[in-house]
């Protein structure tokens, strides 16, 4: 059944698909084909899935149209209008034209998506490697990769979706950017206003927008309105303040009022003294009259700036959108004063709640593991060896003799006899008993390329395994399906990746070594497969659900 919300843009009867005759529907988002007497589509392609369309060349007996999809497959429709080939061609052209119209719209969407993915892969080499290993080798499908495995991408996408889009602001020089064009015949100057410029003007001068809404359709034409606007003193009031009334005089007044209102409502900070910001007249500058004019011009300028700032602030409050944009009420004066007087970093930070370490075995904590062994219980075996036999007095005399052994009584032979020295030298020379290190590990001899490949295998396998085990316990049919999918992927991985790599390893070294190197990988693989088969024995799994996907 086609959903009722879809509008049918074109219906072409007498279209053959694989020897069956039916009707071709072109809807707003997809095309579909159904056998005449049915009520559901046998074939349906979304426009966004379609890469291109192809038509059979002129003069061929069959009039055909082929749509090629992004996944490489294609569907060919043959137009078999009984009225003859001319009609068939007409039918086909209708479809072709409409498709030509529709496809670019959806193509942009697809391209954007593709580009995003491409960008993501180029920015994240580990995911690119994973993509190459898992998708290119058909271990898992591309959709699965993007939806399940590229978690970071999904997160990124959601973030961009969630992020509220910010309005593009108005260029500061938008009025200056309107370039006057000299009009040849009238000697006047022409301005070209685009709708963008108008929108900018409206946003800068909200009162002008109101005026425009009021006047334009009924009182004057668009052109007149803008002419008046540009010549009005409202726009130029900074330059010339005394002028006769014109259309925009009340705009100025209105602005003034809005400004005043904003001033009273927005600033309710008891500690803020705006009068302190007053410009102090510079007495040394020029004649008094000159200074006054300057002052008025300055004030106007400042007023304009202030108005502009208020508009900017309002715009930013609006942009906050969903979040409550209410300005929080200014805190009471006392609190504000308190705030100004106290400094957080000068306060003692006693308030930090500390958790007391509740040690019930302090010696264990201080000394580490073996302290609970009674130290006399043979930790130190010094005394237990032959030394025990020596008599303290003998020891004392030996020691005493040694203490007095320096100086004249020094006997060089007490230090080293030449025979011992030669023996030691033998031990320390190459081949000597002390020079034999631990046996080198055979795995070290892998070439860097094979090593890199091995690492990639590990990454890919653990990615699939991660998803396999994440589905445990498979309590829902979806989870069961997921384990099935992952097991399929594991089998594919074994065939497409592990086995070829093993061959390479065997060529590079020996088969036993290859087995050694791959043992952990195979172990992981087998563990998952064993678990899965146990599961399927206990409860027959709906394998069909997988194959139909």
């Amino acid at each position, binding site marked *: 059944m086609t959903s009722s919300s879809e509008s049918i843009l074109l219906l072409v009867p007498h279209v053959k698909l694989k020897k069956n005759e039916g009707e071709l529907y072109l809807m707003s988002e997809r095309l579909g084909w159904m056998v005449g007497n049915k009520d559901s589509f046998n074939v349906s392609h979304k426009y966004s899935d379609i890469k291109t369309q192809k038509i059979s060349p002129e003069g061929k007996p069959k009039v055909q149209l082929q749509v090629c999809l992004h996944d490489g497959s294609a569907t060919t429709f043959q137009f078999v209008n009984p009225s003859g080939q001319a009609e068939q061609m007409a039918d086909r052209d209708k479809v072709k034209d409409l498709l030509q119209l529709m496809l670019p719209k959806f193509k942009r969407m697809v391209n954007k998506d593709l580009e995003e993915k491409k960008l993501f892969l180029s920015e994240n080499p580990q995911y690119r490697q994973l993509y190459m290993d898992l998708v290119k080798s058909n271990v898992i499908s591309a959709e699965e990769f993007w939806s399940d495995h590229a978690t970071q991408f999904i997160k990124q996408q959601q973030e961009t979706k969630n992020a509220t889009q910010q309005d593009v602001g108005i260029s500061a020089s938008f009025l200056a950017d309107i370039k006057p064009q000299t009009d040849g015949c009238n000697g006047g100057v022409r301005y070209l206003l685009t709708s963008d410029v108008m929108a900018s003007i409206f946003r800068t001068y909200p009162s002008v927008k109101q005026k425009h809404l009021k006047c334009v359709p009924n009182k004057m034409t668009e052109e007149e309105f803008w002419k008046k606007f540009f010549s009005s003193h409202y726009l130029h009031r900074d330059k010339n303040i005394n002028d006769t009334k014109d259309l925009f005089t009340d705009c100025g007044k209105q602005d003034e009022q809005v400004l005043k209102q904003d001033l009273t409502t927005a600033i309710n900070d008891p500690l803020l003294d705006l009068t302190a910001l007053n410009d102090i007249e510079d007495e040394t500058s020029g004649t008094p009259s000159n200074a006054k004019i300057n002052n008025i011009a300055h004030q106007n300028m400042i007023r304009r700036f202030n108005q502009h700032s208020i508009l900017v602030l309002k715009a930013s409050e609006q942009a906050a959108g969903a979040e409550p944009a209410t300005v929080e009420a200014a805190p009471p004066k006392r609190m504000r004063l308190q705030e100004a007087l106290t400094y957080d970093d000068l306060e003692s930070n006693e308030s930090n709640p500390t958790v007391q370490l509740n040690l019930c075995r302090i010696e264990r904590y201080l000394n580490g593991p073996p302290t609970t*062994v009674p130290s006399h219980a043979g930790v130190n075996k010094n005394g237990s060896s032959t030394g025990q036999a020596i008599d303290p007095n003998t020891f004392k005399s030996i020691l005493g003799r040694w203490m007095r052994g320096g100086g004249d009584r020094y006997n060089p032979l007490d230090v*080293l006899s030449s025979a011992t020295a030669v023996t030691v030298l033998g031990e320390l020379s190459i081949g000597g008993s002390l020079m034999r290190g631990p046996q080198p590990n055979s795995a070290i001899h892998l070439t860097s390329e094979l090593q890199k490949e091995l690492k990639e295998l590990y990454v890919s396998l653990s990615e699939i395994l991660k998803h396999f085990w994440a589905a445990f316990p498979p309590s829902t049919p979806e989870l069961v399906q997921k384990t099935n999918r992952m097991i399929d992927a594991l089998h594919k991985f074994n065939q497409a990746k592990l086995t070829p790599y093993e061959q390479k390893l065997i060529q590079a070294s020996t088969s036993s070594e290859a087995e050694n190197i791959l043992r952990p990988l195979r172990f992981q693989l087998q563990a998952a497969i064993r678990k899965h088969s146990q599961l399927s024995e206990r409860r027959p799994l709906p394998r069909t659900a997988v194959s139909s996907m």
Partner: protein
Amino acid sequence: MEDKEERIETSLVAIVIDATPAKKFASQPLDGSSMMNRIFDSLIAFGNAHLMQASHNKLAIIACNSKSTKFLYPSMDGNSRSYQNRPGQYDMFAKVDSDVRHGLGELILNDLTDNDSTKSDSLLGGAMARALCYIHRVQRELSLSHQLKPRVLVVSGSCDSALQYMTFMNVFFTAQKENVVIDCCMMDTDSGLLQQGCDITGGQYLHIPSVAGLLEYLLWVFLPSPSCRSKIVLPPPTKVDYRAACFCHHKLVDIGWVCSVCLSIFCKFSIMCTTCNTEFKLNRPAIVPAKSKKRARIE
């Protein structure tokens, strides 16, 4: 760059002597003397050999037993004892000889009167810590034209000092931070802890098969400074066992459970750390006893 080349390298070797097995070695006769004499004489000879290598070289010798640690050289006694040099002997060598003989002998004799030196472990960790402190001081006092290349040489014959596990580890990591190399020459016994220390600080660990040839081993393996060791063929590094012992059964474990609060190591999972009473909340509410609710507030 230039002044770096001009800085004079000063190599400081701090020898840490473990004196606890002295009795054991004293009972082994050797060429009319005893093994103990041989070892101590070898150490003096090695110290002097180091001093002889370059006039800027510095030496420190610290000895320890189970009761105390003691600076043998430079002597901390203050009043320098009179010493006797053999005809033609370099003054400093004679001083080293005399100081070590006197200091070490005194240390052992003092311990002997207490009479139970073998009952507990030697304070090797403390002695190494003192060596590091000394190195630190020398480093600070050294003029800028000199560059200190410090290392510690531990000569020991006792088993792993279990009581001082933490001290050892602290010493090792401090040394690593201070760029002090720890070398170790073990007689008779092997020490897993010191192996780790040498590995951590990039030093040489050697378990010598015959104590009688100690001096030869010392001169051959430990006299060359760490910087030139890469150029000579030395015994290959031993495979260091970094496994930790669990706190509950003192078994070495490959993979264990570590308390996230006090870092105690356990070989089996339990719901409460027996060292600090922290309860571990895993996703198994059924097992947690009802008592835990009271404690939950503390955490």
